[in-house]
């Protein structure tokens, strides 16, 4: 991508803006990371309290039928399910910054069990896959990310704020339509997940 962008700039004579861009975007990345250190730190702390007090278990219990239906591969992996539930719950509430640490934790746990559920074919192929399996996303990882990207947020508060800022008559008027659109994109995502994992689970 970087190379492509630079070649494009060379052809179109926009090299100066690329230089600027390199400086400003690397600074922007660090700024965001420092910001994230604080916000994600606090949310991870909150999550840890939730783990210790058993609150996460409650959330997991509530969401686990849904998770097990969507990702049968992890039906017996309690830890993954816990983090995933928190991620889903936080997404629904619109707490993006709380969802990210839980999501990353989910991926970490998924990576630990990656390769476990691979179909066993011939022995040799199996060996090959094993060596490579930690570099390859599992079905559950793909599905989990699709679910995250399809967005579960109920109230798009940022957009409401932007609309208000630009003098909309009814800034909150998009909440219901946005909910429907979110529902559509999420259902599309879930259908896609089911379609991709169907062959394996019959």
């Amino acid at each position, binding site marked *: 991508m970087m190379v492509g962008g630079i070649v494009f700039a060379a052809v179109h004579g926009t090299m100066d803006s690329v230089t600027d861009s390199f400086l400003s975007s690397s600074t922007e990345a660090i700024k965001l990371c420092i910001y994230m250190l604080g916000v994600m730190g606090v949310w991870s702390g909150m999550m840890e309290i939730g783990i210790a007090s058993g609150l996460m278990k409650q959330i997991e219990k509530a969401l686990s039928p849904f998770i097990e239906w969507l990702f049968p591969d992890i039906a017996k992996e309690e830890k993954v399910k816990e983090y995933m539930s928190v991620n889903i719950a936080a997404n629904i509430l619109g707490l993006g910054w709380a969802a990210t640490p839980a999501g990353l934790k989910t991926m970490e746990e998924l990576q630990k069990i990656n390769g476990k559920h691979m179909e066993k074919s011939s022995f040799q192929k199996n060996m090959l896959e094993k060596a490579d399996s930690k570099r390859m996303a599992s079905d559950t990882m793909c599905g989990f990310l699709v679910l995250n990207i399809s967005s579960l947020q109920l109230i798009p508060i940022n957009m409401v704020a*932007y609309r208000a800022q630009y003098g909309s008559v009814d800034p909150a008027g998009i909440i219901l339509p946005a909910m429907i659109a979110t529902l559509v994109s999420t259902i599309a995502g879930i259908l896609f997940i089911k379609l991709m994992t169907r062959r394996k689970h019959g």
Partner: protein
Amino acid sequence: MKYVVYVSNYIIPFVMFYIILYGFLHKTDVYESFLKGVSDGIQTVIHITPTMIALFVSVGIVRDSGALEWICNIFEPAGRLMHIPTEIIPVFIVRVFSSSAAVSFVMDIFKNYGPDSKTGLIVSIMMSCTETIFYTITIYYMSIKIKKTRWTLPGALCATICGTIASIVIAGFLM
């Protein structure tokens, strides 16, 4: 409207309050757990910092070199064929890569057409119904060093496109 903003402002403090209260009621060492979690979270952020820099610089270069605009121009005739306002195409494409860039496009649309115009409505709904694909995939997969993402991107695009179509249709009903 006021009510919604009111509720939204209360979600975060309420969730935090509830977690801590729940911790106390279940006799957890709240402070100790909190500290452990924070250092865990900081580790995670430090872990993904190099990825963030790589991602931001690549997106920045593609955007500022004008390559993104060029891509958008290619898709414009297609949009005109489908009778959708051409202004929403750059928003859609940029949104795949970077949320903040997409927001600045949306601001432009609000400024030029007003947030209550049809275009304004479409982008409002569109922005609300999906996340940034590229950012999410990169951060999540790079944090565990996955190289082959298999069907993640097609799945994400499928969800995003369906959400976008829904936004256009819904906005059509509202107008």
